[in-house]
Structures are given as C-alpha cells and as structure tokens.
C-alpha cells in the first residue's frame, strides 16, 4: 500500500478543480484515499482541457473521415494525403488563458505547443497561422495584450524558423477579460513515415527528451479549464516560459531520430506535461507505464513527485524506443545539446505506476485516467433566434463611399500589416500568397504542388445563431481556399466557448458543433483534428462563441492560383453568387448604424459548393487570376480590398438588382466571389454559369485610380488605402487613455 503524507480534504479536492462526484468516482475506482500526487494526476487528466468531458459526446457527431484522411482526431494532429506520397499534418490549439495573464509567453508557448504537436508526428512544420480575438480597442488592457501576443507569436515562430503566413485579428468587448489566441501549425511528412502516440511492446524503454523539468506551469491545464475572475492575474506563475531555440533543436533531433528507425511511439509534453503524455501513450497502446522520477532531468533541486508530474515546462518529449537503440538515440540528442534519459518502461499491467526516491507515489488504472475519463451530457438550452432584418428597414448612409472608407479603416476590417510584418512570413522561400489574401499559399518543396491555408470564424454570427454560425465558419474557410484556387480537403477546429456548466453557453457549443458538422458533411471537408477551450468567461460573462476553423486545401499546380489584387485596367468585374442584401449582423449594421442585431446570413451549402467549384474551375482553366470572396463588409469592402491591393480602381455604374444600394454593397450574403476577367471572356463565363444555374452578373470594370460607386463621387484608392493602413499603427502608437 502506498503511503500518503498529506490528508486529502474536500478543500484540496476543490482546489484541484475536481467536482465532488468526480472525486467519489475516483475513490471508487482506486478503492482507497489517493496520494497528493495521484490527486494531481487525476485532476490533470480529468479536467476539461485534457478529457474533453463536456464536449466529447458532441464532437463524436462530426464527420472525420474521407478517402484522403490518414489520421482523424485523437492523435497529436490530423493527417491527410496530399498525393505524391506526401502527407499534410496539421492542428490548431488555443492558449487563451495564459495569453491573457502573460501575453508574450502565453502566445509564444501556444505556438511552441502546436508546432510540437505537428513535428511529434514526424512532419517538418512548413507554415503557421493564428486567429486572435481581443477586447474592445477602448479597453485599457487591449493595447498591451495586442502588443504582447503579436510579439510572442513572432518571437517564437521567427526563431523556430517557420513562416507565419496567415490568420485573423478581431476586436469585441466580449473578449475584454478573456482574449483568444488560437495557433495553427501545418507540417509536411512522407505518407509512409507518420509517427503516433500509442505505445507498443512490453518492457520497452520510455525516454525523456528535450529541456529539463522545472516548476513552471504547474496546473496550467487546470487553469485553462477555470473561469476567470479579477484575481486571475495572480496566476502568472502557472504560465510557462518558451524557448524557441530549444524547440528548434528538438525538431531537428526528433526528425533525425525518427529517420534512424528507433522510435516506436512519441508524444509531446504539452498540457499536464509528463502525466498526460505518459498516460496517453500507455492508454492508447493498451499498456501500463512505469516511471522512475529520479531519472527525470530537472532544472531545480528538490522537486517533489507532484511537481514533476504536473510541470508544464516547455520543449519536452516522451518516446517509446526500440530496445537496444538507446545509445544511438542518445548520441543524436547529445549532438543537439538536449537532455536524454530513460525514465521508465512499458508494462502489461494497464497501471500507471510512478516511483520517486524508492517509493511508489502513484499507482492508478491507466485506461480510466486516459481514454475512459468521465464524459458528461451537460444540460443545454435550445438556441434563441433573432428576427430577420429586411434590407429596406436599414437606413442608408449619407454616402456609400464615405461608409466604405469608414469600414475599410475600422478595427476589424483595417489592414493587419502592423501584425503580420512582425511575423517572418517568407522564411523557407515557399510563400506564394503572403498574409492579406483570402488564404495563404505555401508551395510544397519545389512544387508545383501547394497548400492553401486559412483560419475563419465570424463570432457575431455564432452568437446570433450558433448552428448557422458554425456552418458559416466552415463555409468561409472552404470559400477562402477556393478563392485562391485550392481544393479544400480538411479542417481543424478550435472551439472557444464560455462555461459548459451554463446551459445557454452549452447550447451555443452544441449548436455550433451541429452547424460545423452539417457544413463539413455537405462540403466533403472533414474535421481531422481540433481543440476545445471552455470556461472562457470573466466574472460570469462569456465570450462570443468562437469556433475557429482552420482549413487546408491543395493546389496541384501552384502556378494556377488567384490573388485578390486587380491586375489590369479594363477587366470586367463579375459577382458570383446571389445577393439579397442581407444586413442582419453585418459589419455595416454594427459599425455604421450602431446596431448589433438580427439573424445572420444563411448559408446555402449546395449553392456554396456549386459557386465555389465554378470559380475554382475558372482559376484552373486560366480564365480568372483575380478572385476575392465576399465576407465581412460585403461586396463594397471586397471591391475596396481588390483595388487597394492592386493599386487599380474600378467603376460600378449601377446596382444591378432591385435592392437599396447600401444593402447591395454592404450585405453579407454568403457563397459569393468577386472576380475580374478579360472582358472578351466574360460572355462565355456568363453563359457557362447560367447553364449551371449559378447567378453571375457583370457589375463593373477595373480602371483608373479611384473607386466609383453608383451615383456617387469617386473615392481615390490612395485615400482608401490611407484609411485602411492607418488605424492599427496609430492605435498601437497612441498612449492608453
């Protein structure tokens, strides 16, 4: 029987984030009072962050397979087949709470963690993306958080040496006390050389690799699963510190070791560190694990078993090695200046046994800790709906051009150059589409194949109608990949929601997952990896529901791609898709009229697919090299962005449908693209579209250096660009109020 020097009181159980019934379940499982180390282990494994206990039954409804899916959810990252013997490995993960408490390190270690997830599977990272949501620009902390998060993402990715090629930045007061930092990494591997977490073989050595273990980040996973209050900033010691240099060495050492054939299984130490990695390797392989903590390389003297098991020190890995290959593996790690220690072995007992200073400090059933953790079907309320707002009921601006200029220079729609210039987006020399486009394009090695990458979600739509918002997030990712000429293949989802213990917030999660599932099924766009971040609320007020979708598509020939910039004067501008002037939940309604209301635009998934396939075909057949999707801010903002990117204006003589002009310009109807083509090619395109039942209309022509909207004076592209580029640098340079 193992000793316990610390009495386990109800307070102690509560401090570990375990509910009374969960603790009872644990007691029944082990048939005795746990040690403090065991309590720490179970609290880490059964918290929301590691166990997905509130979301799991709903996540199961998502489509996760397709002929090109090699590995769906459940591993370190998802894997898809991109042809020619190559696989794309990718995942997105949140680091929300740490980034609010310590923005630089929180964001940096978020990037570090997701990169590790990707190279753990044997893939060399070739691109990073992120999706950031901050509070209101007027909130006193926002500037500090933006500066720290952006510097942290850059600081880690730039040094590690991966191009950060895309992402999103948005502001909303509902993120005031709880920002979102979602980081995505994409890697490339040979399809026949993917590495997995499941341990295999009894008596095989378990090896610790990478940096030493310190006292940083203890209980980070538990913090990530708690609501915030005003005292949360005091949790700073639970934030880890990143070392991108160590991670770069770990990457090179791991890839070298994998080539040697010594690796049976590998798992990175992320949330809940050694505990989570060891339990997952054992549980997935149906094996027990025995660890000897005296062998763990530590940074500090006198660390307890509890501290070692819960430390979230960064840049560490756990591997199961082929017996007899320890020396070869050790040589590789020594060459890279990294720690290497055999700290345990696999067993056939299905027990997770931890020894420290000659004593057994934990002896727990491994399956129940890992893949058989508690699962809840939490009560959830049906979503409430907002009324549809007819376009005629929304006031027209004094001038559409003036409204457009204001939108182009608004916090959400302004240029994010200030952000992405701090990210090395050109390293590796394969960035065909840099940040600022619909989707990033990175060529695969020397080409011609390439990947199209994007992150998308419209939180205000999800708030107004979770199902429709979930559908829209997936559809927009699919559309952005299509707009550059990519064939959408699969997604990773990062579900950021408020407390699942509040039925209305749980209802939002359930609704969004349903919407995501519907869209992924309709578009053959399965979910292959993901992450759930719950309890995103401060003092009882939740964030906007934010299911970020990271999409990946493939271009068979990167030379046949499209960008949004107008390229020639005299091109015909075509609008693909149906426009009904949907102003409910539009940026126009919110930022120009001051009304954040109404039902969001519905997504017709069949039309989405039809329109997208049509546009992609135009790109591949060389008929269109200038394409932009219509999203926030509608057609007007899309035209402005195309003009600003190309330095070429456009004339739109009239609104071609019977709608108020501002509804035509700023409505956010879904499934639409703007393309600019040779006017001689336009008739054939219109004919072909008509034969497929796809609405396409010629709405104007490119030319000159200003944008002319129906019945209005021209606005110069330079003036639009000034407004578009100025907001963020000026905001960041200003002194806090």
């Amino acid at each position, binding site marked *: 029987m193992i000793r316990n020097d610390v009495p386990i009181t109800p307070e102690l159980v509560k401090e570990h984030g375990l509910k009374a019934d969960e603790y009872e379940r644990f007691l029944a499982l082990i048939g005795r009072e746990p040690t403090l180390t065991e309590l720490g282990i179970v609290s880490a494994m059964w918290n929301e962050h590691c166990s997905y206990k509130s979301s799991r039954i709903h996540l199961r409804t998502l489509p996760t397979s397709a002929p090109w899916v090699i590995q769906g959810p459940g591993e370190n990252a998802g894997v898809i087949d991109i042809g020619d013997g190559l696989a794309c490995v990718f995942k997105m993960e949140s680091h929300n709470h740490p980034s609010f408490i310590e923005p630089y390190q929180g964001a940096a270690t978020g990037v570090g963690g997701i990169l590790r997830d990707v190279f753990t599977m044997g893939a060399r990272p070739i691109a990073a993306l992120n999706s950031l949501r901050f509070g209101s620009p007027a909130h006193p902390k926002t500037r500090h958080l933006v500066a720290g998060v952006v*510097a942290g993402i*850059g600081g880690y990715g730039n040094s590690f040496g991966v191009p950060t090629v895309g992402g999103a930045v948005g502001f909303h007061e509902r993120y005031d006390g709880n920002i979102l930092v979602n980081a995505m990494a994409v890697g490339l591997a040979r399809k026949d050389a993917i590495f997995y977490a499941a341990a295999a073989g009894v008596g095989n050595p378990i090896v610790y690799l990478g940096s030493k273990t310190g006292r940083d980040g203890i209980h980070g996973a538990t913090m990530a699963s708690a609501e915030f209050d005003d005292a949360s900033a005091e949790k700073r010691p639970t934030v880890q510190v990143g070392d991108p*240099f*160590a991670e770069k060495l770990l990457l090179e050492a791991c890839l070298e070791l994998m080539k040697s054939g010594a690796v049976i299984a590998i798992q990175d130490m992320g949330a809940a560190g050694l505990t989570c990695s060891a339990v997952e390797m054992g549980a997935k392989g149906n094996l027990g694990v025995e660890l000897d903590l005296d062998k763990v390389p530590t940074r500090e003297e006198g660390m307890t078993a509890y501290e070692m098991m819960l430390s979230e020190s960064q840049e560490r890995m756990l591997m199961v090695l082929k017996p007899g290959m320890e020396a070869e593996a050790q040589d590789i790690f020594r060459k890279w200046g990294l720690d290497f220690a055999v700290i345990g072995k696999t067993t056939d007992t299905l027990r997770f046994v931890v020894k420290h200073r000659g004593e057994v400090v934990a002896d727990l059933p491994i399956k129940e800790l890992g893949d058989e953790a508690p699962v809840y079907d939490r009560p959830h309320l049906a979503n409430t709906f907002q009324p549809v707002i007819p376009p005629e009921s929304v006031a027209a601006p004094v001038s559409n051009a003036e409204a457009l200029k204001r939108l182009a220079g608004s916090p959400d729609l302004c240029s994010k150059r200030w952000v992405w210039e*701090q*990210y090395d987006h050109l390293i590796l020399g394969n960035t065909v589409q840099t940040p600022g486009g619909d989707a990033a394009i990175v060529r695969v090695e020397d080409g011609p194949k390439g990947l199209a990458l994007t992150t998308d979600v419209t939180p205000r739509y999800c708030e107004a109608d979770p199902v429709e918002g979930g559908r829209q997030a997936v559809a927009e990712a699919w559309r952005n990949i299509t707009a550059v000429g990519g064939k959408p293949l699969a997604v990773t989802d990062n579900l950021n929601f408020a407390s699942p213990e509040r039925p209305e917030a749980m209802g939002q999660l359930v609704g969004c997952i349903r919407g995501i599932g519907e869209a992924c099924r309709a578009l053959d766009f399965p979910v292959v990896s993901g992450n759930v971040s719950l309890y995103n609320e401060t003092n009882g007020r939740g964030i906007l529901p934010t299911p970020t979708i990271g999409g990946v598509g493939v271009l068979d020939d990167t*030379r046949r791609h499209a960008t949004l910039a107008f390229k020639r004067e005299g091109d015909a501008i075509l609008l693909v898709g149906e426009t009904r002037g949907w102003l409910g939940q539009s940026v126009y309604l919110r930022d120009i009229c001051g009304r954040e209301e109404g039902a969001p635009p519905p997504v017709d998934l069949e039309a989405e697919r039809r329109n997208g396939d049509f546009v992609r075909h135009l790109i591949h057949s060389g008929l269109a090299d200038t394409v932009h999707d219509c999203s926030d801010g509608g057609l007007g903002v899309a035209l402005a962005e195309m003009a600003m990117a190309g330095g070429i204006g456009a004339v739109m003589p009239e609104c071609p449908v019977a709608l108020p002009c501002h509804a035509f310009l700023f409505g956010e109807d879904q499934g639409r693209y703007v393309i600019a083509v040779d006017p001689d090619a336009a008739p054939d395109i219109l004919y072909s579209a008509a034969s497929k039942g796809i609405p396409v209309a010629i709405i104007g022509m490119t030319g000159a250096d200003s944008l002319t909207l129906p019945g209005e004076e021209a606005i110069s592209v330079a003036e639009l660009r000034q407004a578009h580029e100025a907001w963020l640098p000026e905001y960041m340079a200003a002194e806090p109020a």
Partner: protein
Amino acid sequence: MKAAIVVFPGSNRDRDAARALRLAGASVSSVWHSEHELPHGTDLVVLPGGFSYGDYLRCGAIAGRAAVMDAVRAHAAGGGLVLGICNGFQILCESGLLPGVLMRNANLRFICHWQHLLVERTDTAFTNRYQSGQAIQVCVAHGEGNYFADADTVRRLEAENRVAFRYCDPDGNITADANRNGSLNSIAGIYSEKLNVLGLMPHPENLVDPLVGGIDGRGMFESLTGSLAKAA
C-alpha cells in the same frame, strides 16, 4: 563552385541558402558549428540566417566565437569568399571579419517585408551580374538589423566604396522611409577590405523564384558561381 554552409544550433535559413546556391549551379555541403575545418576545396563559406544559439546574448556573439569560426577566418584571410546573411552578417561583425554592429530596429520590433536595395558596385564576386545603380527586390526578416559603426569606420567604409547595398525605394532613391530599421547611411550590407567578405541583413536567397516574390536575388548567387567558374 563548392559552397559550405555553416550550421549553428538555431540556424534556420540554411536550407533557403542551399536552395539558392544549388539553383545557381553550386555544389553545397553543410558544416556543423563544432567542426574545426571546412570541407576540402571550399570556395565560398555561407553563414546563414537564423538565431544562432538562440541569440539570447547579443545576436551572433556566441556564434562569432564558435569553433568553426577560426576556420572561416583563415579562409577569409587567404582571400576565400565569405557571405553572411542576416544572422550571418551579425556573426561576421561579432567575429571581427566586418566592422560595426547591428542594433535593435529603430521601431524596436521584428520586421518582415519586401525591400528594395540599391546595388552600389558591380565589380565584386557577389554582384557582377547586377547593373550599376540597379534597385533589386529582396526581403528582410530581422529584429536587429540597424547598422551602426563609429564615425571613422563609416567614413572609411564610404571612402573605400565598401558599402555593398543600401535600402532604397523601388525607383532606387535612398529615402528615410525606405530605411525602416534605421541603419546609418541606409547601409544594408558591407564588404571587407579585400571585397571577399560580404555581410548583409536582407535575404537574396528568398528571391530566386518567380512565384515567390521574384528572382532579383538570383543575381548574387549567379555572380558567385560565375566568378568562380571564371577563376577556375
């Protein structure tokens, strides 16, 4: 031409440099930082971009004292060609092969963007494929690229025409706006006295492909392979 790329722990544009060199016809090998010798017959040593040893001390300070740098200094002393890009430029300054230092960018942030450079002279092994006064497009990606040297050193560099490149606008004008990191005299790169060592902050190795920003960087690598072909 035989090029050796020195790989320090934390180098991360070594593969980019290798690709650009191979494209120009060079044979490329890599040299680990703890080596004491360069591969036999090395014509060109490249110190690539990255964050050597994490750059947790001054950028390039530890790498400037690495074992392999004695061999690099000997190679340079014998007239051999050395090219340091970005972190490589910082290492050249720290190792005593080039004068001056690279300070934090004027805005104190890392910056990555397309950039034009004015080619100051075209009679060196690194630039003979360019036109005099040509503005080439490259990219920058650095947090500490703000070139500084004392007044005497700068006077000497200018008097001896050892400034290799200056930040300029697309038309080749040297302007304050085009000099975003705040470098003295808009200096983006400099030569050693014998013109056989070049250090520059921007990345010509990332501009060798029409799909990825253009091919203005090729000129440097083709100059190098061409020069050595002629010499051989």
